[in-house]
């Protein structure tokens, strides 16, 4: 059998562009190649939205050398062909065409993790790893995700939300609504962004306006939610289509900042990466989270329920907030493509990086085959009437 041609797509126009490069190269391309089972084709989407594919893009040194612009300048952007399958087209004297059997998205945030990339795959009829278009899109809108969870009887912190348009139309009414409906402190978040960017914790009503402005600087929809008391924050990576396998509940260690911000999540962990133990690109955390057995199980069950409710497949990570006094578990948000696949957690759960990516590829193929068996071409006479 021929090896599958797997395109790993990373970068893209997103605030998490750089994180995506690390996920793509370190956590996906490297183990896929080491497995020896696949042809791995790196596909890099630059910050300005150009697509590139070149074997040199597998080398992280090219991105951090300080001469990345010049390096990229020497490469020629590629084109995509969606005709009967996905193909990468390198134009030149003679076009070079690479057939893609499977896409492994490694993009975080907007223009990738939000379903857009998956839609291209669906249109081309090519298998791809991870959540499908619908679940990705739902997961990327925190408000919709919360509504989906609530309609499935899953608790979530009390919230209100506004579109940019509505808020700007009459900020005073909006602020009044917040004051009357929510107790302080509240978190103000852009509805579609990951990685804690643009999130503010607010302890005084008069500061809410500025925080909303910041969130709306990034997004066209803002979410304001009550903070959970006696908080333990946990996150649960899950893989699977129908049969689900959770990794360990992971408890990020809170920094002096009041919540898990971008710095703790990526920057500090990265710098202190030499430290052995559970520090990874995701910063410091406790794996498994230290919770009473009953509460641990409850949180795990909640995570799995959310995964199903949103319709995730392949892989996702569910963030939850736990009030340890009332023992209530609140759904917070879903990440369809966890940074670095959260491999540090999977490793602790006994799954190595190569097994992880291979399983994800298998799950993608499984879902693709199943979906294909459902597809039938409908014959109608509809057009004949226009003769």
């Amino acid at each position: 059998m021929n090896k599958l041609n797997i395109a790993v797509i990373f970068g893209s126009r997103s605030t998490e562009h750089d994180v995506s490069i690390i996920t793509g190269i370190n956590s996906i391309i490297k183990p896929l190649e080491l497995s020896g089972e696949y042809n791995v084709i790196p596909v890099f989407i630059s910050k300005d939205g150009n697509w590139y594919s070149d074997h040199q893009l597998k080398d992280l040194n090219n991105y951090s050398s300080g001469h990345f612009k010049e390096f990229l300048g020497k490469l020629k952007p590629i084109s995509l062909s969606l005709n009967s399958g996905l193909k990468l087209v390198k134009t030149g004297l003679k076009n070079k065409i690479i057939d893609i059997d499977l896409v492994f998205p490694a993009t975080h945030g907007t223009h990738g993790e939000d379903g857009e990339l998956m839609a291209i795959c669906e249109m081309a009829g090519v298998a791809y790893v991870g959540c499908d278009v619908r679940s990705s899109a739902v997961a990327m809108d925190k408000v919709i995700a919360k509504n989906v969870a609530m309609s499935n009887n899953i608790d979530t912190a009390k919230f209100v939300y506004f579109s940019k348009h509505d808020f700007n139309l009459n900020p005073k009414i909006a602020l009044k609504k917040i004051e009357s409906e929510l107790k302080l402190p509240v978190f103000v978040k852009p509805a579609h962004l990951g990685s804690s960017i643009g999130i503010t914790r607010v302890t005084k009503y008069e500061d809410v306006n500025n925080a909303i402005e910041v969130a709306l600087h990034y997004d066209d929809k803002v979410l304001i939610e009550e903070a959970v008391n006696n908080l333990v924050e946990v996150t649960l990576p899950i893989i699977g289509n129908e049969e689900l396998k959770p990794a360990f509940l992971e408890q990020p260690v809170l920094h002096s900042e009041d919540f898990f911000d971008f710095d703790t999540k990526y920057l500090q962990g990265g710098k202190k990466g030499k430290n052995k133990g559970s520090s990874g690109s995701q910063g410091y955390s406790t794996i498994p989270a230290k919770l009473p057995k009953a509460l641990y199980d409850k949180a795990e069950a909640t995570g799995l329920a959310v995964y199903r409710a949103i319709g995730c497949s392949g892989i996702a990570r569910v963030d939850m907030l736990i009030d340890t006094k009332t023992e209530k578990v609140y759904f917070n948000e879903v990440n369809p493509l966890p940074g670095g696949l959260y491999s540090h957690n999977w490793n602790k759960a006994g799954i190595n990086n190569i097994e992880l990516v291979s399983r994800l590829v298998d799950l993608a193929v499984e879902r693709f085959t199943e979906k294909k068996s459902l597809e039938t071409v409908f014959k109608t006479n509809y057009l004949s009437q226009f003769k």
Partner: protein
Amino acid sequence: MIKAFLSMYRLKFFTTIVYMLQSSEYDEIKYLRWFWSTQDFNKVSRRGFLKKTRSAKVLLNVLYLLAALIIITGIFCIVKWHSNKFLGGDCFGIALIIGYPIIIGNLVVLPLMIGRLLFINPSNNQKILKSEKIFAAFKGEKIAIVGSYGKTSMKELLMTILGDNLKVAATPGNKNVAISHANFAFKLSGDEDILIIEFGEGQPKDVELFSRITHPSRAIITGLAPAHLDRYKTLQAAGDDIFSVANFVDPSKIYVNSESSETENFIRPKFNKYNKNGVNGWTVDNIKTSIKGTTFDVKKGKVKLSLSTGLIGEHHIGGLVLATSLALELGLSEEQVVAGVARTIPYEHRMQPYELNGAWVIDDTYNGNIEGIRVGCELLSKLDAKRKIYVTPGLVDQGNDTKVIHEKLGSYIAKSDADTVVLMKNSVTEYIKHGLKVNGYKKKIIVESDPLKFYMNLSHFIASGDLILMQNDWPDQYK
């Protein structure tokens, strides 16, 4: 091919040559063998790089000068030929210019040999003779550590256990030949209680010479295994040399590791044997070993001590009991000994455990002998893990016994309970595979052609529940 050939003309070639010399410890034969077996000089220096010592720098400059001289001579010859004064000067000149890297590569041993014969050897001999007087005059204990393997570990162990309460000096690092002993002697202050001298045997008569110079009062023979057989030729010859230390020391003050089966033929009645069962009347029991360390009890008459060490593997117990016995004999209290043993921890790259991605890795990459392989495999079979992975390239410098020893190595791995065996592809791989096959090993064998890549990417292959034992690692010059 062409790229490989052109590698000789890069400026880096000179650094590579000096690196090769340095890595072969300036041994001309080893160096020349390596030089002639190298095809691509770009690919020589992969693991290490040239350490810019003073002699390396001098040598490098000499090489630059030599190269310039050869090329100038070449040009000179061609010019001479042009003016019709030198028949065949053109061919000779071109040959010189094209061939300069090969000339340099070979010629470089000349200044080394001359330097050694004329300057270094005479000066070293003087120093060694001088040091003999210092050692002879020293009144405290002089413990010689001799053997084909395990010397450094034994030295460190004694240092750790004795060093906190007595003034102990030991030969540093792996500086273990006569000239290093001499340099060690010059640095002594004279008020030490104990000297620990490591004997690094390399060829016949070495141990005899070291013994004559250092006058040891006790000797610990840590084991006998095929090593340096390129010079000793046979294990018997190596054993003869190692055990020649006994001719200079009271036989009742000779301690031999009897777990090393090859020592048996050399042990004389009055020698003390030490092993995991005990020494000198001390008996051992209740041994528990795990990835975190080892605990055991020792008993002699009414004295019973419960010892715990960070070292992993039962093979350390013999040495620890011996050190315990010696320490008490040399005046340490029982409490001091217990505390001393508790301070012993794994040395770098010698059965050193660490956690990686939730998995445990035991780094034993400095282990280069078959006995070490045996105890490693035994340890692997005893430790609990969901999946056990054994990694080795095999052993170097095994002389004529290479085949036999690697088949034996294969038989040890076959009994190690490893789920996966990773062999670094080289000249001995097939022997190990054969040994595995003959001994009924049926699980997974992976032959890895790029060791460096394997080590770098290890973290992708493992997860919690895995136990990886890595034994030995080949330097650049072996293939």
